[in-house]
């Protein structure tokens, strides 16, 4: 096994800055290269990325199995949508029951609304996490699922705040490429810095064995709660971006309910539970595949033969993929690994060595005795 070479911190910082600049240039270029459909997918990747990374912080890195992420997304989406809509629009939308004061008369810009959505979701995460995070494993899963369902039911019934089943429609499409990818960058930087701090090591210790972690003097409950609240905050941010990308938000299970949590779970399991880069890959795969798989749902015409599309086929394929992943390839694409500059560097070195010298690698058993 050759020694793993490491890059200096300085080089890594330059590389990261370089990557961000190149990424920004590419995104800027996409305005010219991609038509609106492609740009929409690009935005969707970033929004899913924010949601998946914040979700994996709880499920993959802290090892709590929460099924309530969609609830926080819903809170962020509703709060921010109510803040960006103009008083006129609100009066027009809330036909059954008027919106309560003071929400009916205030309007803020998108940034303030998004942060407010994040903070509101974080408050909800605290309120939900405080009673439920003493539970572990499957009980926690059910309780968080219950809470997210309660949030959805409140959204459905609190006519004078959320406009009930009608939802909020006709939002301005504020989520452009810069907002989406900018927030994704912030999310990844914050979550990654937390993961690689002493705090993050404590979280991983809790994931691997909470009793041992407790014995080492880690306050398990406090750490879990903090992780839950941070994750909730970014879920709220993601919710705001999501609402202003779809331009409509309503309390159907597929929009903000349990199905959204399932989709996020698919992303982080495919990408590798416990990996931030894995969550990003999973989010991108999900966004691209779910557009690509639309061909199964629309009619295909080859010559004079038309094959009828089957609505709902995408989700059958996704869930099959998901179950098969769990059965035969549980680590997913990245497992608990991350793509780091060091790994890329070593991979590149090995690649170059192979290219230059054609000598076969020593086989096992060839070693001189």
């Amino acid at each position: 096994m050759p020694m793993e070479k490491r890059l200096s911190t300085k080089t890594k910082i330059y590389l990261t800055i370089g990557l961000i600049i190149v990424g920004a240039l590419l995104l800027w270029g996409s305005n010219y290269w991609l038509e609106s459909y492609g740009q929409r997918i690009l935005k969707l990747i970033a929004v899913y990325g924010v949601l998946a990374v914040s979700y994996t912080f709880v499920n993959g890195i802290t090892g709590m199995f929460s099924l309530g992420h969609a609830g926080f997304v819903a809170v962020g989406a509703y709060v921010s949508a109510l803040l960006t809509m103009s008083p006129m629009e609100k009066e027009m939308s809330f036909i059954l029951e008027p919106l309560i004061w003071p929400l009916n008369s205030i309007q803020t810009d998108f940034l303030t609304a998004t942060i407010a959505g994040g903070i509101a979701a974080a408050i909800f995460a605290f309120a939900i996490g405080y009673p439920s995070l003493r539970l572990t494993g499957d009980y926690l899963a059910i309780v968080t699922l219950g809470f997210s369902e309660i949030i959805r039911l409140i959204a459905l019934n609190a006519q004078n705040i959320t406009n009930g089943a009608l939802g909020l429609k006709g939002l301005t499409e504020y989520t452009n490429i810069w907002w989406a990818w900018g927030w994704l960058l912030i999310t990844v930087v914050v979550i990654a810095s937390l993961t690689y701090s002493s705090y993050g090591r404590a979280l991983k210790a809790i994931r691997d064995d909470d009793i041992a972690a407790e014995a080492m003097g880690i306050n398990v409950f406090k750490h879990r709660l903090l992780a839950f609240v941070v994750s909730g905050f970014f879920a709220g941010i993601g919710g705001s971006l999501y609402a202003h990308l779809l331009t409509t938000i309503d309390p159907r299970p597929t929009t903000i309910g349990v199905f959204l949590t399932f989709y996020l779970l698919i992303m982080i399991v495919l990408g590798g539970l416990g990996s931030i880069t894995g969550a990003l890959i999973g989010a991108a795969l999900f966004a691209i595949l779910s557009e690509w798989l639309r061909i199964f749902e629309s009619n295909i015409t080859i010559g004079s033969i038309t094959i009828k599309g089957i609505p709902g086929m995408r989700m059958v394929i996704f869930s099959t993929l998901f179950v098969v992943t769990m059965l035969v390839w549980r680590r997913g694409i990245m497992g608990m690994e991350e793509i780091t500059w060091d790994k890329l560097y070593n991979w590149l070195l090995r690649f170059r060595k192979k290219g230059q010298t054609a000598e076969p690698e020593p086989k096992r058993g060839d070693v001189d005795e």
Partner: protein
Amino acid sequence: MSARMFMQNLFNGLTLGGLYALIAIGYTMVYGILRLINFAHGDVFMIGTYLAFYGVTLMLLPWWLAIVVAIIGSAAIGFLIDRVAYKPLRESPRISALITAIGVSFFLESFAVVVFGGIPKSFLKIIPNFLKKIVTIGELRIQVLTFFALAIIAGLLVLLLWIVYRTKIGMAMRAISTDIPTTALMGVNTDTVIGFTFALGSALAGASGIIWAMRYPQIFPYMGFMPGLKAFIAAVFGGIGSIQGAMLGGFILGMAEIMIVGFLPQLAGYRDVFAFIILILILSFKPTGIMGKKLTVKV
């Protein structure tokens, strides 16, 4: 609330509670053995109703035969789910099995959307006419269906208790829930017993689904989600792992739900919330439920 309304609600609560109890038994038996929340259980409930529906409309079976076939079909599906999705994961961490269970549930729902269609179907055709008649007892007006449902539920519960406590396979099930490896050493084929447990629980879920669809005659691919969750809550409430607990929890939950809405109709939109509040309270103050045993973690 008048006395008449109260009696009406009492019958409704009893039936709803019985249906929850039938589903909850499946959860509690599987959890008792594998420590796994079988998320797909609620979807077996849904598939059972569709099997009965197509048994009558497509295969033109008489209604009672369609129901029997659907219950056997549900049992087969439960068995199959265990074999395909859960058996390969017996030795892996519990949380992997849970994630797989969620995947299976999601698969069954999306599969149902593709095969059966996402638009709700009316179950009214399947209900034989004599069950739709209304009996008048004093001021009380009750559908024959209610008595029929209660009789079937009671019959199934007694049958289940007989299987679990009076038969050999039932003894194996109880043994396995205490200790799988030791039971295997005693010469019991544990995989067969686990498979049988899944089949038995799924048969009850299928039966419950069909009675449910007769009372609320609209069937759709996601109909199993909420009853499934609530039945799981009932199982936790009664003490997970305990069959009598699941029955008791189911009846209490169903009765409470109907009565709260009966007394406070303005909260009807939030009726699904109560169950979750009960769950959170139970897990916070008495996580072992009414009849459950305490589980300790060995370090």
